[in-house]
């Protein structure tokens, strides 16, 4: 379980998160949604131990999120963080060496599924294929928590759909929990169990997606707009 208790994060004078408390149950796919600059990426970075809170605590299965939490958490950055002179195969090798939980077989299977050519250099890949490669190396790690910052942004519909299918195929929800930030709500909606809505560093609501449909008769987009305007 992921727990944030009274977490605030300040960048110099700008407050990114303001007294956020959250509980995320395992075995779900969670969407962290909100406008640009609302604090989504900051939240993910705090959970993955890449940032330390200014105030409050972040606990992953009872352990404070610090440098060593990466044993439990895989984090996919919204930026391209790969050596461009590596080939696809070398990138996968590099990850396999870096993380002891890396499942080589699963990675191969996913490369096949995503139709990625292992001999190609990262710098020669299209943006879509770089996006796919990021997904492969993140999902090949057998960790209980997977965090994905904007895995779909700027990609064409075919790539987005292959990423979504890859997610469903290769995630084991009996052992894993996934948190995704995205603006592609319509596409991601069928995939989510729960959404967490964040605005200006404050959590507005946390709700089951089916409940939103069932009780409020709203699609995720409409719900978000309604909550944001109030």
């Amino acid at each position, binding site marked *: 379980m992921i727990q944030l208790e009274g977490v605030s994060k300040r960048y110099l004078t700008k407050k990114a998160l303001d007294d956020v408390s959250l509980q995320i149950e395992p*075995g*779900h*796919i969670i969407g962290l949604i909100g406008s640009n600059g609302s604090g989504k990426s900051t939240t993910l970075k705090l959970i993955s131990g890449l940032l330390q809170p200014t105030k409050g605590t972040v606990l992953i299965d009872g352990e404070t999120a610090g440098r060593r939490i990466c044993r439990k958490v895989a984090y996919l950055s919204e930026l391209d963080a790969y050596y461009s002179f590596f080939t696809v195969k070398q990138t996968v090798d590099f990850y396999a060496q870096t993380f002891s939980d890396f499942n080589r077989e699963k990675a191969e299977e996913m490369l096949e599924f995503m139709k990625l050519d292992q001999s190609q250099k990262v710098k020669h890949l299209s943006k879509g294929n770089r996006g796919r490669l990021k997904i492969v190396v993140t999902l090949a790690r057998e960790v209980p928590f997977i965090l994905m910052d904007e895995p779909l942004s700027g990609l064409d519909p075919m790539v987005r*759909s292959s990423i*979504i*299918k890859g997610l*469903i*195929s290769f995630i084991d*929800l009996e052992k894993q929990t996934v948190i995704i930030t995205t603006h592609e709500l*319509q596409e991601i*909606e*069928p*995939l*989510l*169990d729960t959404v967490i809505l964040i605005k200006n560093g404050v959590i507005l609501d946390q709700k089951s997606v*089916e409940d939103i*449909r*069932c009780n409020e*008769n*709203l*699609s*995720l*987009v*409409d719900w978000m707009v309604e909550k944001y305007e109030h």
Partner: protein
Amino acid sequence: MAQPFNPSVPIYLQLCERIKNKIVRGELGMGTRLPSVRDLAIDSGVNPNTVQRTYHELEESGIVEKKRGQGTFVTENSVVIRRMREDLKISHIKLFVTEMREMGYSETEMLDGLNDYLAQKEENE
């Protein structure tokens, strides 16, 4: 990607409807094995937990049966299937009648209209 979902109805219910329709149409015969949770999730692009819930819902109403270690199967109980077929018919008729009534058609107009439509269709075929 697969067929889109209606955004304001729970997905697990929509999946239930789709499976029921397939059974009524005979695409899924009695005793047929349903796809695994994961396969259906991938096919329809939804969360595996949602498919789980769909199967659970169908199991509760007796339409499918879970066999330990083998998967989920369409029931071989023809009474259940017949009842489901009947329910589906009634719900569609209900919808039709409600909408027609809202637009101000009388019952005779509906019946005549339906008969005419069917007769015309028969001629064309």
